[in-house]
């Protein structure tokens, strides 16, 4: 792989590492409490299993990003890396989607099921969850771009011959 290609894919992986790491950290540190009618209403990410799944998936993805930074393109592992990229992309998109679905109920409620929105009582928690979700979405998009770039890298030499 030429130098520019290697540098570009390293850059994409660094960005993905940053995005997944920030998503994990922002979600883990999100908590808020409110007093409603003498009842303390505490909101933490661990109260909801979708957010726990989000944290675990992003942590796994950031660990993978760190490892993938050090795989040289000249070894056999590069082929495995493209396949693992696809699997991690799938993991990331499903976690972002799950957290987004639950956060949507938290923000807008679900009148048919009688579920009231909670964002009015714990706005700080809601804002941090929104930030974590945005970072997670960016990470998923970057991983998808990495996949397309790997496909492009494999194909382009065929056209220059």
């Amino acid at each position, binding site marked *: 792989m030429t130098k520019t290609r290697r540098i570009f894919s390293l850059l994409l992986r660094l960005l993905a590492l940053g995005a997944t790491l920030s998503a994990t950290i922002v979600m883990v540190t999100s908590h808020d409490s409110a007093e409603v009618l003498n009842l303390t209403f505490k909101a933490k990410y661990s109260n909801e299993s979708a957010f726990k799944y989000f944290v675990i998936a992003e942590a796994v993805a950031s660990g993978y990003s760190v490892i993938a930074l050090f795989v040289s393109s000249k070894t056999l592992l590069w082929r495995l890396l493209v396949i693992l990229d696809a699997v991690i992309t799938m993991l990331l*998109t499903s976690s972002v989607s799950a957290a987004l679905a639950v956060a949507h109920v938290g923000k807008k409620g*679900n009148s048919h099921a009688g579920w009231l929105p909670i964002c009015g009582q714990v706005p700080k928690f809601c804002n941090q969850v929104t930030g974590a979700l945005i970072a997670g979405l960016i990470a998923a998009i970057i991983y998808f771009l990495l996949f397309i770039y790997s496909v492009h890298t494999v194909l382009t030499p065929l056209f220059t011959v």
Partner: protein
Amino acid sequence: MAQQDAGKAEVGFSISRGAQRGKKKGYWLLLLLRLVAFMATASATIVMALNKQTNTFVVATIGNTPLKATLTAKFQHTPAFVFFVVANGMASLHSLTMILVELFGHKIDYKGLRLAIIAILDMMTVVLASAGDGAATFMAEVGKNGNSHARWNKICDKFHTFCDHGTGALLASFIGLLFLLIINVISITKLHIPKSTNYVGVP
């Protein structure tokens, strides 16, 4: 086409060199996988789209007459389930299209990019299907167990059939997602990713 002869069957799957109608072992295997993925995602779509249950509850008693309220649980009430239906519908459409292209469209190619386009489309379908599955799974989990911290009551104890059908649709879509992922990995390996990407000495 400038496909190199470094293209030995890398992982034992067939090399589709454009117009070659090679009916090797890998050809039928891939077709079978796509067929299973199509059936799984199509059944998930249909079961969830027809998911509806109506129930009558006694909400209060005035004197001796109970007041009844009729409540309906439909999949449209939850945006996550709507997305689930749409995502699985598109995944099944994609699988069907790919089956037809493999059976009848051997000569379809665009500047030699056939394998790349199939790989990218497969990846997009996996991403879409996984997003739909993730959202629906966790919404179903909230519906089944409720969330005491947010004061969200569970609904599965009142709408058994709705929850059962939803669970069935989810299981079918998980199977479809697994097969879609396997197909994606096969499409990636078909791209002849070489052992090293040093294209210095291209013959």
